[in-house]
């Protein structure tokens, strides 16, 4: 099953490599990963998605918690949560295709954020499934480049991951 694990950790050099190293060392997989400082500059927030049985995910969270740099973590998929991912797609669009790409972008509530006479650069935000869906919908178009941020997530309601 897919899990989104959100980690609050010390914003120190080497902290990220410890987290990433742990996954390869213990044969856990990482599907997506993103990390950035928080409003508290001493803390970074790292969000990763992984697949595994309950037992594997239990080990992942325990092993992550053991890292000295990890302050707190939560498996967002255990409760109600919101997840978002941002994707940039550069697609070739000329002639009749321009209108079709534009329509598809509108349907997915995306934005065209840059253009040349033959190229659109599109930004799409949403759950990972929606981003996958957009790429599928572009089907026959000539996609030149795809950049995805990986999943960010936050719990619904009053629950927070903070000190």
């Amino acid at each position, binding site marked *: 099953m897919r899990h989104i694990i959100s980690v609050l950790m010390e914003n120190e050099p080497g902290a990220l*490599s410890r987290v990433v190293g742990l996954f390869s060392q213990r044969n856990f997989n990482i599907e997506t990963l993103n990390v950035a400082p928080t409003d508290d500059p001493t803390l970074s927030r790292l969000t990763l998605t992984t697949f595994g049985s309950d037992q594997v995910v239990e080990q992942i969270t325990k092993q992550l918690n053991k890292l000295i740099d990890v302050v707190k973590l939560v498996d967002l998929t255990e409760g109600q949560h919101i997840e978002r991912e941002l994707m940039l797609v550069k697609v070739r669009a000329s002639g009749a295709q321009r209108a079709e790409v534009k329509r598809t972008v509108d349907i997915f509530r995306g934005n065209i954020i840059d253009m040349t006479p033959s190229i659109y650069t599109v930004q799409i935000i949403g759950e990972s499934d929606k981003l996958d869906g957009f790429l599928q919908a572009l089907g026959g178009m000539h996609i030149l480049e795809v950049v995805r941020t990986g999943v960010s997530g936050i719990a619904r309601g009053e629950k927070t991951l903070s000190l």
Partner: protein
Amino acid sequence: MELLSGGEMIARFLKDEGVEYIYGYPGGAALHIYDALHRQSDVKHVLVRHEQAATHMADGYARATGKPGAVLVTSGPGATNTVTGIATAFMDSIPMVVICGQVMSYLIGEDAFQETDMVGVSRPIVKHSFSVKHPSEIPMILKKAFYIASSGRPGPVVVDIPKDMTMPNEKYEYSYPESVSLRSYTPPAKGHSGQIKKAVDLLLAAKRPMIYAGGGVIMGGGSELLTKLAQQLEYPVTNTLMGLGCYPATDKQFTGMLGMHGSYEANQAMHHSDLILAVGARFDDRVTNDPDKFCPSAKIIHIDIDPASISKTIRADVPIVGPVTQVLEEMLSLIDDAPARENQEHIKEWWKQIDAWRQVHGGRYDTSSDKIKPQAAVEACWRATNGDAFVASDVGQHQMFTAQYYKFDKPYRWINSGGLGTMGFGLPAAMGVKMNFPDETVVCVTGEGSIQMNIQELSTCLQYGLPVKILCLNNGYLGMVRQWQDMNYEGRHSNSYLDSLPEFKTLMDAYRHQYVEIRTKDELDAKMEEAFAMKDQLVFINCYVDPEEHVYPMQVPRGSMRDMFLSKTERT
């Protein structure tokens, strides 16, 4: 406040932290630190002949005392040579702080002379690591390093110190940090009372209980309490390889070691038990055999300081995360208050069954052979040392024979590389123990293979006058490798014969140590006593043992706990 250079701070901190010995080897990036050590006399530096040995010496000290060992090496090869020793300590949860020199901070990343990313190299085998960015950080970083190494589930910590952090002329205010707190690290202080109560209820109702105790009991200082608990309940006890000594081996409730080379009775009792109380043990693959077939009718109570150890390979029914001493104390007080127990009849039956299992194998070996059996050599060593020596071991058949036949009655006495299985560990570990317990008998049980992996340390023994006794069970083979080749490769002994062994007698002469040779059975006890009578000298006891011998019992691969080979011709 006092002004000190980075190098001086390190020396002063070690003194203030109560470190008596630091084991190491100098080199360019560590020279400022070495100079600071030279200008004081509180902390004594022990010069090894290879950095790996420095880590094993510190490790031996830590295993014998429960306190963190300290190591000092230079950058690059000095640091990388400690990797095996750090991994050894990591696998067995041994507290250790390794201070590594590093190239000047402005050279880092430029592939400078003797530069290695030691924090990166050691990352998977340390509990934590630090890199010093400013000299003024040194006291607090070292304090954190010692605190992390020795608290919670202990482990090795690396502190990487660029040379320009220790400049003699750059002085900063020094004060010893009395306390330390880390917002992201708080070791469990107390086990959950509800869980402890549940565990005690299960224990008091059990019909076929087993107490399975590991190295965590020893390092957590819980041996006495565990013994008390077991004796109060009158339940059978088994120890892991790492846990030997946490329960007295000569006591009638002790069923021996469990696992791959565990006793017949311990493995049978585990398999048939209805309740396992696991304390400071981690259900590793050399204990459980096939985890899917592990102890089918047992409920499992698992006490450990590390939550990640619980339900990692075998699911626990009652997990208890906490310090072994606090949890066992709380259990004992609940047992004291418990009303008369109704499981007494079942326990009597259980003991009858265990005693019957004891008759099946009972640690037997061929005593009629003309050759010296390695088991007999270990038993002779046990007699010659009154069963009271510190015994450090290398890795292989001799290690298993020692675990089986040297009956450890006290904790902290059995010093061996259980998790990593590091050949070359024994001699330096024994040296680390001897240095700190000069009046005690310290033996290194080894083989002619293992001893050659750190044999250069005979020189360190000479320099510091470390009269350890080296008992070499010499069978001319890498015995454990040979055993597996006999059993799994139709006796094809690929590279397990050690040709061209040195003349150990000549070698001991070269290092001005003593040499005793044992070739026949009838001289075993006399020669052993002769060797141990030379209190003030290192004695190498070259004991020629039967090369054909295998270690038994041995669990059948991918079987359950109870599936064992009992000899070359018998299996369960």
